[in-house]
């Protein structure tokens, strides 16, 4: 099984938690192949979890370069299932689903339509189409457009990158600064979103591609780092969040993992602020609470019939921690020069 997102750092990718779920499953005896973009992705050095790692080219290098590398890796590893875990790489893998299938590699990804319509820039249309409450959002491609927003949305508002990053801007100067910062890192458009006051809550879920929710676990971040990531979180008993998840997966016939990012207002209204088209970095909480979603995702990719999960443990918590691995320079040398470790 090949898994990306091995950047288990302060803003972690989902690769390591996904691998832990797969390893916890008693159903497989997996050989885990890590796909790394950077030489310092910690997962590549976590040999108790990742058997072998290969560097892969960035999505910016194009789909062909990525597939050429996957073909090479597959020639050695005979990959059964590939689980991409970065938003930015999903497009390339979705486009190449048929090609990978011809190589004997299965995936279980959203369709391009599903991927496109849940984009941050398309959130208002998504909300209208599926009758989901969303905050005002507008994609912005220039400073002139940013300045012309007057009246559409009041300060503070959220300035978001198309894949990652979000900052709260309290005035025009801050908005301009964040626009430049995000545009330089993630490109255009930058999304301006109404700031909704309330508690940030999330749902990790898995759709079977035919309208059924295989599993879903709601969570509240108990503490958020300066990067906006969960330091700790706890499973919730919230039927409203689950109903919303079932409805979105049902109506979109969502295929694969997803994370709903929601704001719950003091009046208990739920605003959908984002749909991430993959399992999130906190997915291991779902595993710990009784829903091994990575295992179910692998089984769906293999074409197996998967029963829906019937429940999860309430009040299950995760607390994220950092851990310094000691590695030999030879390992770093191997990954950076040969592209394999």
């Amino acid at each position, binding site marked *: 099984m090949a898994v990306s997102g091995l950047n288990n750092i302060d803003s972690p990718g989902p690769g390591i938690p996904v691998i832990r779920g797969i390893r916890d499953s008693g159903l497989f005896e997996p050989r885990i192949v890590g796909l790394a973009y950077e030489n310092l992705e910690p997962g590549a050095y976590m040999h108790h979890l990742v058997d072998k790692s290969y560097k892969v080219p960035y999505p910016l290098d194009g789909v062909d370069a990525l597939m050429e590398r996957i073909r090479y890796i597959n020639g050695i590893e005979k990959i059964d299932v590939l689980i991409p875990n970065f938003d930015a790489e999903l497009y390339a893998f979705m486009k190449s689903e048929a090609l990978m299938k011809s190589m004997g590699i299965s995936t279980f990804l959203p369709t391009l339509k599903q991927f496109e319509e849940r984009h941050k820039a398309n959130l208002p249309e998504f909300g209208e189409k599926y009758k989901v409450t969303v905050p005002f959002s507008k994609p912005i491609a220039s400073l002139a457009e940013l300045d012309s927003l007057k009246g559409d949305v009041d300060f503070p508002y959220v300035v978001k990158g198309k894949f990652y990053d979000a900052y709260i801007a309290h005035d025009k100067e801050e908005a301009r600064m964040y626009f430049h910062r995000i545009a330089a890192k993630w490109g255009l458009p930058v999304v301006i979103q109404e700031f909704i006051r309330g508690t940030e809550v999330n749902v990790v879920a898995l759709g079977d591609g035919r309208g059924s929710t295989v599993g879903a676990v709601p969570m509240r971040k108990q503490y958020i780092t300066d990067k906006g990531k969960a330091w700790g979180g706890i499973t919730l*008993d919230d039927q409203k969040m689950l109903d919303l998840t079932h409805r979105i997966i049902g109506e979109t016939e969502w295929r694969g993992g997803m994370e709903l990012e929601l704001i719950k207002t003091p009046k208990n209204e739920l605003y959908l602020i984002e749909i991430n088209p993959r399992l999130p970095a906190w997915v291991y909480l779902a595993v710990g609470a009784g829903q091994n979603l990575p295992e179910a995702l692998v089984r769906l990719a293999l074409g197996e019939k998967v029963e829906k999960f019937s429940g999860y443990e309430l009040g299950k918590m995760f607390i994220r921690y950092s851990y310094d691995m000691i590695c030999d320079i030879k390992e770093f040398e191997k990954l950076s020069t040969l592209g394999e470790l």
Partner: protein
Amino acid sequence: MKLKKNIAISETGFIFDPTTGDSFTLNPTGLELLGMLRHEKSFDEISSAFTTKYDVDATSFERYYVDFLATLKMMQLVEDNE
């Protein structure tokens, strides 16, 4: 005032609300009062029990009681329609 049905109350005074994920800690007196509320005791019953057991007059107890209920409401530990 009805407490939410799904809140977990431990005998150590640790309260967990699985709907919001919030947790709270109560001292033994607060825990005793919450237990009575959970058993839907009336104000008169609670007041009588507390003024008999503790060194507090009925007027002062009522003030503490109202404060306590307001805190429960603020912490979203009571049913929505209350």
